[in-house]
């Protein structure tokens, strides 16, 4: 999956928000309210998103309508699965802040923090 530009991202947000298949004109009308943008631009973007597998394109009468292949939540869930899968030492693609700790270690850390706080107060 290649990188997304800002406009592509905006179009995806609109498609998700509609929650039903939309035409290029539907999306254009919404975007045009906020910025100057041409029909052909929106059309190109949506075609590109369909080629990237993010949008599904169907023929509705004479025009194309587009729907999202996966919901926003499904993409987010996939992202989280990848983030967690990368935490094992086999791959250094991501670096996490902290791994999970066992309850015993958590308790020991709470005690260490409390003891440090007490020393701080005594000064």
């Amino acid at each position, binding site marked *: 999956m290649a990188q*997304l530009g800002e406009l592509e991202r905006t179009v995806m947000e609109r498609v998700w928000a509609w929650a039903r298949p939309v035409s290029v004109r539907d999306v254009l009308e919404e975007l045009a309210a906020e910025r100057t943008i041409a029909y052909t631009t929106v059309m190109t973007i949506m075609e590109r998103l369909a080629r990237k597998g993010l949008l599904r394109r169907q023929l509705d009468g004479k025009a194309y309508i587009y729907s999202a292949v996966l919901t926003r939540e499904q993409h987010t869930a996939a992202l989280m699965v990848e983030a967690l899968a990368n935490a094992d030492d086999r791959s250094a693609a*991501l*670096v996490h802040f902290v791994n999970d700790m066992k*309850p015993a270690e958590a308790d020991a850390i*709470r005690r260490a923090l409390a003891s440090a706080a007490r020393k701080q107060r005594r000064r």
Partner: protein
Amino acid sequence: MISVVVLGAFAVLFATAVPALLRRLPLDRAPRVGTVLWQVTLAAATASALLAALALAVLLPELSRDLAESFRLCLLALQHAYRSPGGLAGAALGLALFVAMSIRLLWSLAHSLHEARRQRVRHRALLALVARPHVGATVVVDSPVAIAYCVPGRPGHVVVTEGALARLTPDELDAVVAHERAHLRGRHALVLAGIDALCAAAPRISGFRDARQEVGRLLEMLADDAARREHGGLPVAHALLRLGTARAPAGALPANGGDTMARVLRLTGQRDAAPRWLSAVGYLAALSMLVAPVLIALGPVAAADRTYCPVEGASVSAESTI
């Protein structure tokens, strides 16, 4: 011959005994020196193995001729200095070993870096889709799973989830972001990918796996130190506790026994840093580990220099010291 044996012994030492020693040292007290020592050990092990093979291979006519010309030495004296029982057959074996090891190493490195890059690119594509910008180069993902991590790249990103934002105070969040940015600045993921490559090239050497684990630990401490300098140790320590317990009891991220405790002790000032002179000793030891194999490999060159160079066709009369 002796240089081959010594280099082979070095390779074994750097792959087994030195890692075992390093694991026992309190490198937590000087994490930067610690990571250097570990990486140098790996480099020295690899270099020793390669140089041992080369020291055998050098008897091959083309190689010894090139070496003699580079150092302006008598060819026969040089070959005499590097002589070994195996002769030309041994030299051919040495060359084969050198080429095989080099190819395996280079392939492993390319594969490891490529794999890490592939995963990062895929992850960044998903981030571009669902993450929204936060302050600085931080992005937020709308998920209740409370995690924070960084994704290297151009530019690198620090990722926090809504779940993490909900659990951290503003100070703690700043500290976490500072920690992750230290990882990005220091290119820590690249270092780890390099060690992964070595582990893949030589999977049966447990010393390399130990290196991967220990360097991972020490790099976390380096990032902690950077965050501590900017925000103080306590916010980092509290953030560790909050995010580390967010997914209890059956966490999704594998638990490393006792690592987080060591980090908290350092952050709360309950573990002293090593004195400067001790760090200097560490760096000196690292330098020696790098230099020693090279000196041994080139030892016969020095010996050949002092040998009387025979006339063409005559045998060497003076016994070299090797």
